[in-house]
């Protein structure tokens, strides 16, 4: 592996971590689309900054572009506040307008410089190692690496300092306000960090990948954990994993690095979405199926409890009475037998003591909806897990 390859992977990984941090909070605040808006609308900021500084990596350019990002958020909120259109419409109005201004400015004035729409959308990660930072003539590494490194350090510093405030205002803005933590200040702080990160990552990975790196790792992590800190770490891990694996996929396929990383992010989310232990699609489908069987079981047990007469409890009559198909009836009876809730004696089904108690308890719960009495049943039955 050459040092250029290593540098590209390092840049991609740092970008992934820097994106995962604000991304986690954007996902939790249901503001994923805002990152899309920011990533596009900072273009005019970048172009104006470039005209002034003639340097794509100048700090002034980053400040100007980040400012455009914050202006985007303000504009979206102002349009939304009129009550005439909803938030998604406001986002859809603001960012194409700003983005198109940037596109026109590039087309009119910057045709002959290293700034074109393709690079803006997809980035040029492969070229990142060629743009070196020289300090008094000494090569200290690629410029992009330094830029994203510094942004990441600041982001981590802010996360450490304001983790509590971010968590509180994301979960309960009303309480945050009443306790004196300005949710508005925290909101704009997060928007500023998102904008700065987007600008810093923009040059390396482009507008589309920035969005993917902010949202996909956080969305995947959200399906896997119920702990905010773990969610942050998982997002970072997923981001880095996709960055590095995406790089090698691009290497083998001789394809776009940004495109490959984004594809890996998509695949990663798909796998998590299908296989996540409790929130994944397969787990949910399994749970729903089990719940259906359990409801049937309860119906069956209740029928037995309500009928003491033998002819109502005869195996041959049960199927007609409850009106179930053979397979379903068999599944339910097997489940009841397995749990020692019924006994079958001479074709007559009877509730055991356990089955009787279980039925009363379950009915009580369904009527009163009081949780305390079914705590011990939650482990065995999906039905009672809410």
């Amino acid at each position, binding site marked *: 592996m050459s040092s250029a390859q290593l540098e590209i992977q390092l840049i991609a990984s740092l970008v992934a971590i820097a994106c995962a941090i604000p991304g986690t909070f954007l996902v*939790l605040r*249901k503001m994923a689309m805002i990152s899309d808006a920011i990533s596009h609308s900072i273009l005019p900021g970048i172009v104006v900054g470039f005209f002034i500084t003639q340097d794509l990596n100048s700090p002034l350019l980053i400040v100007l572009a980040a400012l455009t990002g914050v202006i985007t958020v303000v504009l979206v909120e102002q349009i939304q506040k009129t*009550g005439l259109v909803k938030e998604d419409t406001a986002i859809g109005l603001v960012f194409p307008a700003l983005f198109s201004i940037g596109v026109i400015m590039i087309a009119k004035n910057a045709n002959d410089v290293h700034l074109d729409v393709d690079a803006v959308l997809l980035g040029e990660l492969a070229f990142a190692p060629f743009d070196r930072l020289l300090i008094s003539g000494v090569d200290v590494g690629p410029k992009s690496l330094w830029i994203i490194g510094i942004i990441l350090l600041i982001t981590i510093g802010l996360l450490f*300092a*304001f*983790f*509590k*405030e971010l*968590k*509180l205002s*994301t*979960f*309960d803005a*009303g*309480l945050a*306000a*009443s*306790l*004196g*933590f300005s949710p508005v200040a925290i909101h704009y702080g997060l928007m500023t960090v998102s904008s700065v990160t987007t600008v810093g990552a923009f040059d390396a990975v482009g507008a589309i990948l920035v969005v993917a790196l902010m949202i996909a790792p956080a969305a995947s992590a*959200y399906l896997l*954990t*119920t*702990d*905010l800190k*773990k*969610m942050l770490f998982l997002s970072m891990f997923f981001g880095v994993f996709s960055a590095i694996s995406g790089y090698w996929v691009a290497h083998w396929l001789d394809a776009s690095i940004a495109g490959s990383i984004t594809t890996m992010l998509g695949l990663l989310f798909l796998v998590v979405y299908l296989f996540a232990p409790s929130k994944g699609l397969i787990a949910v489908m399994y749970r729903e199926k089990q719940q259906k069987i359990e409801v049937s079981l309860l119906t069956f047990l209740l029928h037995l409890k309500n009928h003491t007469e033998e002819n109502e409890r005869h195996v041959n009559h049960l199927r007609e009475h409850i009106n179930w198909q053979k397979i379903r009836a068999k599944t339910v009876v097997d489940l009841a037998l397995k749990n020692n809730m019924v006994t079958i004696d001479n074709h007559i089904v009877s509730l055991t003591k356990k089955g009787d108690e279980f039925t009363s308890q379950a009915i009580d719960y369904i009527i*009163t*909806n*009081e*949780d*305390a009495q079914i*705590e011990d049943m939650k482990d065995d039955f999906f039905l009672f*897990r*809410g």
Partner: protein
Amino acid sequence: MSSKIAVQVDDLTVAYNYKPVLWDIDLEIPEGVLMAIVGPNGAGKSTLIKSILGILKPIAGSVSIYGKSYDKQRSLVAYVPQKGSVDWDFPTTALDVVMMGTYGSLGWIKRPGQKEKKAALEALEQVGMLPFKNRQISQLSGGQQQRIFLARALVQDASIYFMDEPFQGVDATTEIAIINILKALRKANKTVIVVHHDLQTVPEYFDWVTFLNVKKIATGPVKDIFNDDNLTKTYGINYKVSIQK
């Protein structure tokens, strides 16, 4: 009940997009009362609480807590928002939510430590939710979630408690548990202000009541002013509830 005024609201007017939702409210809440705020939907009950707590900015009027502005008296006040105002799928545990109640006294940047954790565990114990401390909040029933919110307010150890519909969507056991805690707070000379929907239970639960419908209709002891006349004025129809006095 002492004669001190815990919360004073003067000429408060609040508007959303220039449409007043609270109009010229004057209100004095004495220390140590357990007060219900009642009124129809859209009467501005939640808005009143939010304006007192500085979450919403009024277009006119002022609020004072024990004679000083809310900003200076924050530490004396605890707030229980409507249960539906937060996302219960948020990745956090019951204990962690209760710990949030300690953030106010910690201030910016400082992290909660052992002392805060201990206080949170005690509050969980008080509402009977200690066995659920590590449970993810979406795995709790509606009643349990409301108890968690109550514990989060208790951990603040405030003098005045504002609660927005704490009985909404809770089971009977939780309702009794909550009202017992509220009565215990009153006994400790705390002031408790509750947005309440169930008119039938007002005389049983509360000793003070405020009728609100954009304007203040009446405020005072339940035994003096909780009558058909005020109910009709507030709800606009000939409202009669059977009240056992």
